[in-house]
């Protein structure tokens, strides 16, 4: 669209530029803050490297669980009319509006030793509070809605009649899903998975309550900032930002901005 110079268009550009600057400015400032030497030091900081590995492993586990449990739910929500479908869809999206420390407290009550479920799982060797599974639980809680939402939209974009055609050509329901719907919805689901992974990496609020130790990167950065100040926190923050940028680029590659193609 071509915008002619007018008070209206000038206002539009000005407001848009302000927001872009507000978002990009701090991130750029942070990147410029880190010198190559400090980044090198960060990568030889054992505690930081271990924390980043822990973050990557737990975020990947949470994303895998989100996909494993969320894709079937998304398919049901997109394709199968069942009683209470809207309620189920609403429940799954609740974590988006729940403040993350509140989510942490809720998870603590639900999975902690004082709850029947926590006790039962603990007896089976699955401890959440101050254990790695607690990190995965916190990440899963906040990232699952992203996967479900993305997968549901991806399934909705695939005409259900394609599966019906495949069934008449001899496919079982599962084969038709695997051969037709999944490849067509795959790009959207993977994009949702990558976003969920990024959301997991950035999670702080629920994990700090559920599993302060071992420390994921976001908690380690907070820890260093409160204990040693800004200079100690910056290199770790930059490393985490670089990871986030890499994920962002991946998402952009997987799901190009449709607005640019109009």
């Amino acid at each position: 669209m071509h915008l002619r110079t007018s008070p209206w268009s000038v206002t539009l550009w000005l407001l848009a530029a302000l927001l872009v600057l507000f978002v990009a400015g701090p991130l750029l400032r942070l990147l410029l803050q880190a010198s190559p030497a400090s980044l090198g030091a960060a990568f030889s900081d054992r505690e930081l490297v271990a924390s980043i590995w822990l973050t990557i492993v737990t975020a990947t586990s949470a994303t895998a669980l989100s996909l494993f449990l969320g894709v079937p739910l998304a398919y049901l929500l997109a394709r199968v009319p069942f009683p209470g479908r809207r309620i189920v869809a609403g429940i799954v999206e609740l974590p988006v509006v729940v403040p993350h420390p509140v989510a942490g407290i809720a998870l603590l009550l639900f999975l902690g030793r004082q709850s029947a479920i926590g006790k039962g799982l603990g007896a089976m060797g699955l401890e959440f509070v101050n254990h790695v599974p607690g990190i995965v639980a916190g990440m899963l809680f906040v990232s699952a809605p992203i996967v479900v939402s993305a997968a549901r939209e991806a399934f909705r974009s695939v005409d259900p009649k394609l599966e019906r055609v495949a069934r008449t050509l001899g496919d079982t329901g599962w084969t038709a899903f695997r051969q037709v719907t999944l490849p067509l919805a795959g790009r959207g689901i993977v994009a949702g998975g990558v976003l969920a992974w990024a959301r997991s990496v950035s999670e702080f609020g629920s994990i700090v309550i559920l599993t302060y130790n071992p420390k994921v990167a976001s908690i380690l950065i907070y820890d260093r900032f409160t204990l040693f100040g800004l200079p100690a926190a910056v290199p770790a923050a930059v490393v985490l930002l670089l990871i986030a940028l890499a994920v962002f680029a991946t998402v952009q590659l997987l799901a190009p901005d449709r607005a640019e193609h109009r």
Partner: protein
Amino acid sequence: MIRLEAVRVRVGDFVLEDISLAVPSGGYGLIIGPTGSGKTTLLEAIAGHEPLSEGRVILRDTDVTRASPEARRVGFVYQQYHLFPHLTVGENIGYGLRHAAPAVRAERVSELADSLGLLPLLPRTVRGLSGGEQQRIALARALAPRPTILLLDEPFAAVDPATRRVLRRELRTLHEREGITTLQVTHDFEDAMRLGDVVAVLAAGRIAQSGTPDSVFRYPNSAFVAEFIGTGTVLRGIVERIGESSPAERSDPGGNRFAARFLSNGLELEVVAEREGAAYAVIRPADLLLSRTAMPFPAPRNRFDAVVTRVERGSAVAAVHLDAGGNALVAAVMTTTAEELGLASGVPVIVAIKATAIHII
């Protein structure tokens, strides 16, 4: 063979009810009906995509009412083709043969692609193909596993008239060559006349009439059927018995038909009827004879004056729309005859029709 016995299907608020229909082995059946009459739902119920709440579906003498779609082994072509967008044309056609030996699959794909003029397209993706090409691919894909039953959902709806004519011819050839029992959904009665052995007219989830296309066309059992299939003119009026016996009565002495008068909006027609009272008169366009002067027609019982309101010239036949005392009629005459008679809007004509050619319902 396709046989439906008192089938009932519910999809949301829509209900298909009491559907009974039979298409013999190797036969070509057509379901015609307006949009929203349940045609596609009926095909999907036969294919196993929509569960039946009552009735039975029998395919090839086997009750498949509870069978899964893949177990029914029917070919299905949707109106919008629904080609798999992530596969090439060749992969689309060969989709149902994925478990066959590669050589067998390749041979069958080539054979179908060749007969439908798709060979150059095989390596291409399906995006950007014309409606006719997509339709042929969808047809080839459905035929590839050699189904003995083929279900077609408005296969010609989304193509231009020229392509439609070609596709119709190709479909008839394929049907005869492969000997497939076919059931096609259409809203075009011309498909039924050109392709069908059996036709069922569907209205609001029920079969309004079924039979051979010719019998449905000649003897529609309701004003809805007559108007929907474009039989021609449908007049609403009253049937009154008259004393004298008609040629039909004389040839059908044991029947209950009698000579009668049909009165509609000032028009009085001699007809042969089975009952008195309110009725519809169905007049096929080809049965109306037109002349500019009072010439002797071969034994017509009815003659009346009319004015031409519009002439639609086709390549061979012209549809001549008439006004006879406020009654709208349509006649079909050869285009050359229309020209010879100088038929045009506002031209007065004399209309003649045999009493036996008027179908009273």
